[in-house]
């Protein structure tokens, strides 16, 4: 090493250069995903998400034709006629509690879990980089949310195909599309619900940066989600309904109209984007300035 390669302060300029490109990010994200998907608790949540559509399907099958009697959650009545609708019905049912709970667990644990183990200080000393750590944590939460929604849809689809007739999908607007086009719409619905859960995940990530107690963070996020859903059901609060994080969760029905989409869907996606931006900013502002004393 020649003298020229030294820094002004005199230390050799042997600074290990970060490998360029996305390589280090992908590697860190893979490690994070391995951590999340390797936890029995999270796998159990996925198992519950897969199990509930099975229960719904079996219950509908046993109650026989017309057993639904109308009234229940959306899409439930259509399941007996077309198994594909079990996926839409399951997502509707699970969006009330189990999916938000899953997101609360994973996002609430994201930063607070590392803090409670003390591993946060070692990650920062590596150095993982505070902003980079947050970004990777959030990306992993979003991916887990997508996996959760996909698990529900996949389990429901399998059960629906086994227990019920499957064929061209009759849309809410009355027209009928082929099974393939119907499945494509199911994929869009899964992506929409995953986006909704990503917004909740951003709220969870922000909450998680404020505490060293993952259980506290998880509880707080779940309370927020339920409070939002309850407020959304109270007509007297109608003025604030559009601004509630949960208000647009069930708007995916718009994807099942012809033509797909509409203002509801746009408002929903806009709402999710705003929540992601605001709470990612809060998480960043908090975490990049916080003393890590755990």
């Amino acid at each position: 090493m020649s003298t020229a390669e030294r820094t002004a302060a005199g230390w050799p300029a042997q600074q290990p250069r970060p490998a360029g490109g996305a390589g280090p990010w992908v590697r860190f994200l893979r490690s994070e995903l391995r951590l999340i998907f390797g936890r029995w608790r999270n796998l159990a949540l996925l198992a519950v998400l897969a199990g509930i559509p099975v229960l719904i399907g079996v219950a509908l099958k046993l109650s026989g034709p017309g057993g639904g009697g109308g009234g229940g959650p959306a899409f439930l009545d259509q399941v007996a006629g077309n198994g594909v609708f079990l996926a839409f019905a399951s997502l509707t049912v699970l969006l009330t509690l189990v999916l938000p709970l899953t997101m609360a667990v994973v996002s609430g644990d994201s930063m607070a879990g590392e803090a409670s183990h003390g591993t946060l200080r070692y990650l920062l000393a590596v150095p993982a980089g505070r902003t980079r750590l947050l970004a990777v944590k959030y990306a992993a939460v979003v991916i887990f949310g997508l996996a959760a929604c996909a698990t529900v849809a996949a389990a429901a689809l399998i059960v629906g195909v086994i227990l019920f007739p499957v064929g061209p999908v009759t849309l809410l607007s009355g027209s009928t599309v082929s099974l393939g086009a119907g499945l494509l719409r199911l994929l869009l619905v899964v992506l929409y619900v995953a986006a909704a859960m990503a917004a909740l995940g951003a709220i969870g990530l922000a909450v998680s940066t404020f505490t060293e107690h993952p259980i506290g963070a998880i509880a707080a996020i779940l309370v927020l989600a339920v409070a939002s859903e309850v407020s959304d059901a109270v007509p007297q609060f109608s003025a604030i309904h559009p601004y509630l994080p949960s208000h647009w969760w069930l708007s995916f029905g718009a994807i099942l109209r012809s033509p797909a989409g509409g203002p509801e869907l746009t408002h929903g996606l806009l709402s999710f984007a705003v929540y992601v931006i605001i709470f990612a900013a809060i998480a960043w502002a908090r975490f990049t300035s916080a003393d890590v004393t755990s």
Partner: protein
Amino acid sequence: MSVAGQGAGPRDEIGFGREDPPPAGERQPARPRPPAVAPGWPAVAISSTGLSKRFRGGQLAVDGVSLAVPAGSVYGFLGPNGSGKTTTIRMLLGLIYPTSGEHELLGTPMPAGATAVLPRVGSLVEGPAFHPQLSGRANLARCDAADRTADPATAADRISAALERVGLLAAARKHYRAYSLGMKQRLAIAAGLLQPRDLMILDEPTNGLDPQGTREVRSLIREIAAGGTTVFVSSHLLAEVEQISTHVGVMRTGQLVFQGTLAEMRDRGAARILVRTAEPEQAVKVLAGRGLADVRSGPHEASAQLGEQRPEEINAALVHAGVPVAGLETPRPSLEDLFVELTGEGFDVHG
């Protein structure tokens, strides 16, 4: 200051011409290794000026600490529990932000330069912390994956090498939660050894270890230092670091009350003259008559601070005065005594 190697050369010159790693024998005395720094190299691996931290509760945990850790040294960072050592280390690593003051690691201002400099710094902060459900190896793989400067192609080999160095290779596949405290501590050190480091910051690395474990960690630190790495090691026990340190800094209630080489610390201790005699009263008179300070007497002895006077002259004076001198000693306080004197006895937790 002797310079081990001349001219611009490879980085082992900050290692100032150490011989081979010292034998692992524990009783070997601390070898004074004054930091010799080649021209153009910085004298310090860690420097801070007036580093202070006031926590939100109002407690001043660290109060104006100005560290100067010479490159290539083994710096023992001493102080009783609660004296601000860990808070200082957390500030050094950028985990917490100082209320005032600034610091540099390896000539790089922190915390602004954290991304650039921390890959060259291995650390152990306030005990080991890993994911209990992962194996030792998987935990190290996670640390390595978080490091954007780490080469994934060599990760497996580097992890094995680090585990080997701390003697954990055989237990690499065991869950972290099944590790003993000593194994946990060693895994944390292994995490610091995943990359070649210019600086190791080790907070109480022997905490909770049995004597055998302590010995192993100590010889590991020697080995790391022999490779040219500056080692900053904290402890609340002088004995833990006395044998391996070239330099010490002593903390007391948030302040750095001493910093220097071990020899300098020894020199701080005022030498005394101790006279063994059957007539201590008489001896006291002579000592006091010569203007010595802090004259004390015991059943068969008298003592005073030696100051600038020479023991042989005092002896002559004693004999001249007819004091039956049975023995004459010039004891120096032990390092342990000096350490206790610096840090205060017992648990005086302030704030």
